[in-house]
């Protein structure tokens, strides 16, 4: 798991990850690359991350992957990421394709609703919390 200030260097990360995995006898390797879309008049997105809980969330997933002889990788941006740049990458390597396809899907979906990352639209150089697109974490409202 790696965090980068600003946009991700997709080529560098993709090639480094593949280089690390290719001789480990995995049969299927699936990266997922999230790219900031030019929409809703934003010039980009911005992110805050709470690392301690992100790390433990990722560790738990890595354990799950290990139980299926698989391996997970992830990179995310901190701060501002302009349109058409990548803010999020993840990848799974598995012995076989069926497991890899299943895992990248469930990993990315759980990432969206569980990873402690807050997203802001960049509009007129201001950070506007993307509240409507956000998902309350499990147990939300405990102190209400």
């Amino acid at each position, binding site marked *: 798991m790696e965090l980068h200030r600003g946009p991700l260097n997709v080529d560098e990360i993709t090639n480094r990850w593949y280089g690390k995995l290719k001789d480990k006898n995995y049969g299927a390797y699936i990266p997922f690359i999230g790219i900031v879309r030019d929409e809703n008049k934003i010039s980009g997105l911005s992110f805050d*991350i*709470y690392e301690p809980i992100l790390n433990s969330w990722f560790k738990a997933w890595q354990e799950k992957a290990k139980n299926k002889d698989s391996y997970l990788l992830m990179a995310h941006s901190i701060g501002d990421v302009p349109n058409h740049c990548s803010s999020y990458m993840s990848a799974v390597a598995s012995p076989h394709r069926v497991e890899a396809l299943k895992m990248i899907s469930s990993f990315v979906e759980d990432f969206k609703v569980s*990873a*402690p990352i807050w997203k802001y639209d960049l509009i007129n150089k201001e950070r506007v919390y993307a509240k409507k697109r956000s*998902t*309350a974490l499990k147990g939300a*409202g*405990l*102190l209400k």
Partner: protein
Amino acid sequence: MAKVEFLGPINRESIHVDIKNLNDLKEMFKHDNELVEWLEICAVAVNDTLVSSIDIKIGKSDKISLLPPVCGG
């Protein structure tokens, strides 16, 4: 005193509080009008683990975090 941190878009400085459990914190925040709308949607972590019971005991060196709705990627 236990530390309370407000993560992400809540955009508040951390505070230190003298409480015995999360219920005390709930009582303390009850009249903080600005915080009320956050409390409805925030999850709570104690020492970086999400918790689901209001009765959890809080010690002097514990850290409580309020986590608003998330959207990575």
